Structures are given as structure tokens and as C-alpha cells.
């Protein structure tokens, strides 16, 4: 009996050496679990999600590698030639009889920039502003929601009232306020450089509330579950309980909101840039391009505004569809 037990124990000892996993092993394991998992399965079953994902991927790729992919570096002012201004797209003729050339596939704008290239660079700016503001909003919102829900009491009331007040200000108003303040306080050149950060801050400010409220709600549910109480009985520090126990269990909705917010952030950025609060004309985003183009739409030079608008619509639609699918895929009740 005892001999049998000893060999048993030895067998288990060798096992134990195996269960000490390397980091790479864990990563491969979690990757494996992802492809085995429900989310990937639901992805494979949804053509809409796959198309949206492909479109998003292409747009991301184009945006990230714009300096290498674009036929014309529109960021480099020295390459611009006003003689090239306002060419129609290739294969079209404008109201004044100018014919489009293959060099400018989608035509040029009023400064001789190739619209096709400008859109790629614009996409880059739009996506960067979108991502930066959503990440900022997600980090701030998730932290505040977690603290608010877990600690509760007066702190919860204070944070949630701030959130309520925040909701009454539209992003445009916040952006105008911050923009105006920055422009008034700082020299013009500095303010111009800061514009993109003002934009990110303004959009993030209008979006953190969604994260905070959702995370707070999920936290209220999770904190009463017994595994959190078990951690309390063990004597785990509240901050650690929040980060290691509650946070991993509330990230599902955060991911969904982040995706949907990305689309909204890109739209808000476009709106603000269209109104002139956004990024400077020298580095136009999609919204800025639309604003430049709309001045010429009545003279029949439609391409300057239509193509950037189309790109914006496709991008926002793809990201939104992806977010919608993700929401359904992560919602166990819809399975």
C-alpha cells in the first residue's frame, strides 16, 4: 500500500514539473483556446462580420503604411504644385473641360494634392485620433467605473453625478471649449500643434461615461459573487481584488463599447474637423478633406468631397458592423 502510494507521489512529481508552464506555452495555449472558442466560431459563421473585418483590416493597413503605399506624399508640401489643382478623377471631365489623368486616380484638391493619397493620410489621422481617444476614454472610464462600483457609497455618487453632468455636454461643445481655451492661453503656433491632442481629449471626455456606467453595472454584479467574497475572506487587498478578480470579468462589454465608440470617435473627429476645430489643414484628416471639398461642390467639382466621405462611410460602417457582431458574440443570451 505505502509503496504504491510512493510511486504514485513520484509520478505526480514528474507531472508537476510539466505543469510549470513557460510564457510562450501559455500564449500558445490561450491562442489555441481562442480559435477553439465561441467567439471565433461565431465569427466564422457570420459573413457580415468577416467582410467587415476584412474591410477594416485593409483600411487599417492602408492607414498605417500610408507613407509607403500612397502614390504621392501629400504631407510633403514641397511636392505640391498648384498647377495640378482641381483635376477631376481619371476618366471624368470637369465642368470646365479639364480631363482627369491616371496620375491622379481620384482627382486633386484645390492645392494640387492627390485625393487618393490625401485620403490615405487622412485615414491615418482619423484612425489615430479615434484610437487614442477611445483608449483614453476606456482607461479612464473603466477605472472610474470599477472604483465607483466596487467601493460604492459616497464616492460612487460623486463619480456618477460627474458622469451625468458630463453627458449633458456634447463632444462638439467640449471640443470648442477646450479649443477656445487653448487658443486663448497659448501662442498660436503652440496651439496649432496641440490641436490634435485637444481633439483626442475632447472626444475622450465625451465617451468615458459610457465605459464608466457599463463597468460600474457589471462590477456591481461581480462584487457580490462568491469568488470576490472568498478573496475578501482570504484578505486580499481591495485594489488587487478589483484588478485581478473583477476587471477580467467585466472586460467583455468594454471591448464591445470600445469598438462601437471607435466608429463614433472617428465620426466625431470628422465632424469637428469639418467645423474647423479639428486637425490643421496641413495634415488633413478625412473630416478636413470633406470640409475642403465642400467649398467646391457647387461648382461641380464633386470628387474632392465625395471620395473622402465614401471612405468615412465605409470605415465607420465596417467598424460598427464589427462592433455589433462582437456584442452579439459576447452575449451568452443570444447564442
Amino acid at each position, binding site marked *: 500500500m505505502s509503496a504504491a502510494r510512493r510511486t504514485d507521489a513520484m509520478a505526480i512529481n514528474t507531472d508537476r514539473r510539466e505543469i510549470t508552464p513557460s510564457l510562450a506555452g501559455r500564449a500558445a495555449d490561450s491562442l489555441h483556446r481562442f480559435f477553439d472558442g465561441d467567439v471565433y466560431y461565431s465569427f466564422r459563421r457570420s459573413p457580415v462580420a468577416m467582410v467587415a473585418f476584412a474591410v477594416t483590416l485593409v483600411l487599417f493597413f492602408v492607414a498605417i503604411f500610408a507613407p509607403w503605399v500612397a502614390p504621392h506624399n501629400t504631407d510633403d508640401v514641397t511636392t505640391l504644385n498648384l498647377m495640378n489643382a482641381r483635376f477631376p478623377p481619371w476618366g471624368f471631365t470637369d465642368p470646365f473641360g479639364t480631363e482627369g489623368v491616371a496620375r491622379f486616380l481620384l482627382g486633386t484638391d484645390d492645392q494640387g494634392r492627390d485625393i487618393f493619397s490625401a485620403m490615405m493620410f487622412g485615414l491615418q489621422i482619423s484612425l489615430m485620433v479615434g484610437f487614442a481617444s477611445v483608449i483614453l476614454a476606456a482607461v479612464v472610464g473603466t477605472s472610474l467605473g470599477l472604483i465607483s462600483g466596487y467601493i460604492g457609497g459616497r464616492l460612487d455618487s460623486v463619480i456618477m453625478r460627474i458622469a451625468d453632468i458630463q453627458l449633458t455636454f456634447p463632444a462638439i461643445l467640449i471640443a470648442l471649449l477646450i479649443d477656445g481655451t487653448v487658443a486663448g492661453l497659448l501662442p498660436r503656433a503652440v496651439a496649432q500643434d496641440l490641436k490634435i491632442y485637444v481633439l483626442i481629449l475632447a472626444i475622450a471626455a465625451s465617451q468615458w461615461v459610457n465605459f464608466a456606467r457599463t463597468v460600474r453595472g457589471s462590477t456591481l454584479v461581480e462584487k457580490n*459573487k462568491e469568488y470576490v*467574497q*472568498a478573496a475578501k475572506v482570504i*484578505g486580499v*487587498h481591495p485594489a488587487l481584488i478589483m484588478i485581478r*478578480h473583477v476587471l477580467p470579468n467585466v472586460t467583455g462589454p468594454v471591448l464591445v463599447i470600445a469598438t462601437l465608440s471607435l466608429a463614433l470617435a472617428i465620426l466625431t473627429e470628422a465632424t469637428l474637423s469639418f467645423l474647423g476645430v479639428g486637425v490643421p489643414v496641413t495634415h488633413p484628416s478625412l473630416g478636413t478633406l470633406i470640409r475642403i471639398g465642400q467649398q467646391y461642390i457647387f461648382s461641380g467639382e464633386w470628387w474632392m468631397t465625395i471620395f473622402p466621405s465614401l471612405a468615412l462611410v465605409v470605415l465607420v460602417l465596417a467598424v460598427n458592423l464589427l462592433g455589433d457582431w462582437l456584442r452579439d458574440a459576447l452575449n451568452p443570451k443570444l447564442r
Partner: protein
Amino acid sequence: MAEAVQARQPEGDAPLLRVRGLAKHFDVSPPFVTRALQGGGRSILRAVDGIDFEIERGKTFSLVGESGCGKSTVARLVVGLYKPTEGHVEFDGVDLASLATRKAMEPVRKRMQMIFQDPFASLNPRWRVADIVAEPIRTHRLIDDSRDVLHRVGELLEQVRLSARDGEKFPHEFSGGQRQRISIARALASNPEFLVCDEPTSALDVSVQAQVLNLMKDLQRELGLTYFFISHDMAVVYHISDYVGVMYLGRLVEWAPAEEVFHNPQHPYTRLLLDAIPDLEMTGRPRQAVAGEVPSPIHPPSGCHFHPRCPFASDRCRAEVPPSLPRTGGQVACHAVEEGRMPDAGNSA
């Protein structure tokens, strides 16, 4: 602090846990604005309304009663998840209320653990079992080397009849009984001497219940554990307890050694509970159900809380709260028992 707690250990005769006049009231009033508009004052839910008991070292004390009578609240008060409204919980002579900070609480935390009712909610679904079981070890820095921690986790898993390799899995890969054993392994990880078990078997199949209960009994024998066991299942309680306390609507109506409670129940509520146990000999015969439901603890009945359902209630029961009086091996709080109005406890169990 740690030395002070350790120094007390040798005096073995003193009870490990002593609960004095313990009460927990919850404020369940509607919000201030609603109260101002619709009138009506605060409403206080008296979940636990002044109870006293003691648990000896190495013994099992069970608390039984219907749903909503405050059993789980007592468990949470004992481990410090709730702060008592009144009264004291003394663990090994140390009043838990005197340990205000988390740091001061730490030496007690190591020695006292809890097993929860729902094996599906009590394990973090995103953690590997090894990490779950190692949490008390890492929190209290009981073992420094990470390989030694894993080794210890393996031992613990084997102690609850699981394999050391199970540590690599996630909780959802286990059945309810296995999960409950993981819970037990986690509770044992910091070498506690006192376990609070809040209905640990009520979510399990009967066959698995027996497994878990036997495991708990074995562990008690091997490790000299003291159990505070909460249950509504009289059969489970009979199987595991040394002492049994019967709770009704926030009050302890009777407590005594298990044999006494089951074979010589004094309080009419205890008798009703015992009569309600289904058993094979009674199959097919009509049984007397416990009449009525537990009244709301927000508006409890006057006097003895049990009087509206009690067949022996008198005017005195309706007016006066019965004091706890000694009975064989324990205490009982009943006017009828005091006045000798009760018929003999006959064939109840």
C-alpha cells in the same frame, strides 16, 4: 499582533469561537426622497437579532433553519464580511471588531477560512485552478518560491482527492462536486484551524454531497479543524455535527449536542423541523407540514417570533421574548418548555 494570537493557542480548553449578543440590522428603507414624498419611516431588517453561542476546538457546530432566517448572515459576520450592528465575535479570545485594519486582521485571516454555497460562483472563472488554490498562499506570502507554491498546490489538490495536474485547468472544466473540493483546497491553503461552511453541499447531488461531507470529516480528523457549518438540510447536519443550533428569524431558539437536538428536541420549532424530514419509513403516509411561512424580518411578530406558527403558543408567548434557559447540554428559548406545557418529545427522529 501575531505573537499575541499565537501565545493564546496553548490554552486549549477555551472555545475557539465565542459569539456574544451578535446582531446585524440592514437598512432597507426606500431612498430619502421616496420616504419624504410617500411618508413612512425607515425600515430595518433584523437579519440577526442577538444570538450567543460558542464553538469548541476540533468540533463541528451547525446552524440550521429555514431560508431567510439569517444563517448565512451569521456566517458572514463570523468571518468578518459584515460588521456586526451589535455584539461581538471573539476568535480565540480576540474580538474581531478590535482588528480595525486589514493588516491587523491578517493573522486571523490565515486561521479562518470560508467555503461558499455555490461552487459555480465561488471560483473566479478566468483563473486557473492552481492560481485559485494558491491565492491565500500568495496573499499571505506563506511560501516565497513559486515552484514551492505549485508543489504545495499539488499537495492540496491531492488532499481533496483531485489530481495535481488539475491545477492547469479552468473551473468550468469541473463538476459541481469537484469545484466544491477546489473550494475546500483553497480554504485549506493557509493552514487554517477554523472553517466556516455556508451550505457547502446544498448545490450538489445527493451522492456527491456524501463525498464532500466525508471528505470534510476526514480533513477534520487529519488536520484538527473546527467547523462552523450552515445548512437547511437536517440529514446533512445530523451526519456532520457535534453541536446543533436552530435558528428562527434571526434568533437562536435552541442549541445542544447533536444527539440531544435530534433525539430529544425541546423547542416546538425544532420538533417541526425534525418532523418535516422525509424518510423511507414514512413513504406514502401523509405528513404534517410546517404550517405557514417565515414572517418578514422587517416586521417580526411580537414576543416569541415563532408564536404565529406554534401549536403551543399562549398569551405570554405573544407578549414576551423568551429568554435562553439551560437544557440538557445546551440552551432553549421557549416559554412553553419553561412552563412545562410541552408534551414529551417522543419519536421525532
